């Protein structure tokens, strides 16, 4: 049992306890080939451990499954967020123009909630909930992206 997320992913969102269903990443690179930009075409991990990279503009998708240990870690980190957490901003070194890195968590029966964003307005980092929680989840998803998102993205 991997917490509420696993229950909520059974397709019966109305009856399930609220929990995360998917984490979604979307990135943008500057002046770089999209096929080589990690996360450019989107990367989503469901609470059952399946992941989906893409689709690319050509319609290609890459699907697979993260490991049970990775899912446990992701479940622990993603379960800590709620749609009600307040959005906040953080600025150390501002992001370079054109670079974006967005992480959303989708909850059962509700919209996706952006928990981390690099490269938004003012090029500050915007996050939701506690800074440590948001950056831990972001770092964990980044690891998954580096492991499972194919670069270059496969051609049609």
């Amino acid at each position: 049992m991997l917490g509420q997320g696993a229950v909520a992913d059974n397709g019966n969102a109305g009856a399930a306890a609220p929990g995360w269903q998917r984490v979604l990443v979307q990135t943008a690179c500057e002046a770089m080939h999209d096929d080589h930009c990690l996360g450019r075409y989107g990367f989503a991990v469901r609470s059952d451990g399946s992941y989906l990279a893409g689709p690319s503009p050509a319609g290609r998708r890459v699907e697979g499954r993260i490991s049970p240990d990775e899912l446990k870690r992701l479940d622990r980190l993603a379960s800590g967020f709620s749609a009600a957490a307040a959005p906040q901003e953080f600025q150390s070194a501002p992001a370079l123009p054109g670079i974006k890195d967005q992480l959303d968590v989708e909850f059962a029966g509700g919209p996706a909630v952006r928990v981390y964003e690099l490269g938004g307005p003012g090029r500050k980092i915007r996050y939701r909930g506690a800074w440590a929680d948001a950056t831990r989840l972001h770092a964990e998803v980044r690891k998954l992206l580096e492991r499972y998102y194919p670069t270059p993205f496969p051609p049609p």
Partner: protein
Amino acid sequence: MATMHPAKKIYDLHGDPIRIVPLHLGDDLRTPTKEAAAAGPVAAPNLTYRNGPLIANVEVFTIFWGTAWTGAQAALANQLNAFFDFVLTSALIDQLAEYSVPAYKIGHGKRVGTINLATPSLKHSVSDTAIQHMLQSEISSNPNVPHPTPNALYFVYMPPGVRVVQGGSASCQAFCGYHNDISGQIFYAVMPFPGCAGCTGGLATLDALTSTSSHELCESITDPIPGQGWYDDANGEIGDICAWKTKKLGDYTVQLEWSNKKGACG
């Protein structure tokens, strides 16, 4: 316990649908619902003017940082200077005229000089913050470096083997070049040496550099303070919309740029 090795499968267009999170963030930090995202087509690119400055007649000053530019890469530095001498009075600049506004009529520019910079010496990586410090220091102390004006644009070329990093991003990982401003007063672009497939696109080094340089040049002219000139919330700047679509202009490879008038890259 051994970690399971992931199996990767490629699916066609009609596989399990996935919602792509839009690039622009709304004020409420929420993305559209699945249903809303699926309801309509993605809007065509359209740059809108945000009332900030433009560079009307750009004056490019090139800075080749690192000793490689006076050694093994000296010929390439000369070729890049020749590229600017050509392109700043070319059709590439002419096509930007559609983005002129009453206060800034975009026209031809010129290259106003160049320097090779051996110091400060570079290690394996350099931050954008350090590049800004270098620029400000050279402007204030080096009589060969012009002072900033509303038309001045400094192009900083990095030598092979030096990674540019900033805010958790790095060259060849998240960017192949960029342009930026310092307090809205100093406009500059940074060109890391293209040392990865994502930044060469199969092109020769000179072609990759002129392509990326043309991308950043046109963005600098039309949006010198990023997001305050001509910008599209969903698609970015003029060069982002057409990234890595190239054409030959004279002897040089340049990137296509978005035209609002034509509704296409050209």
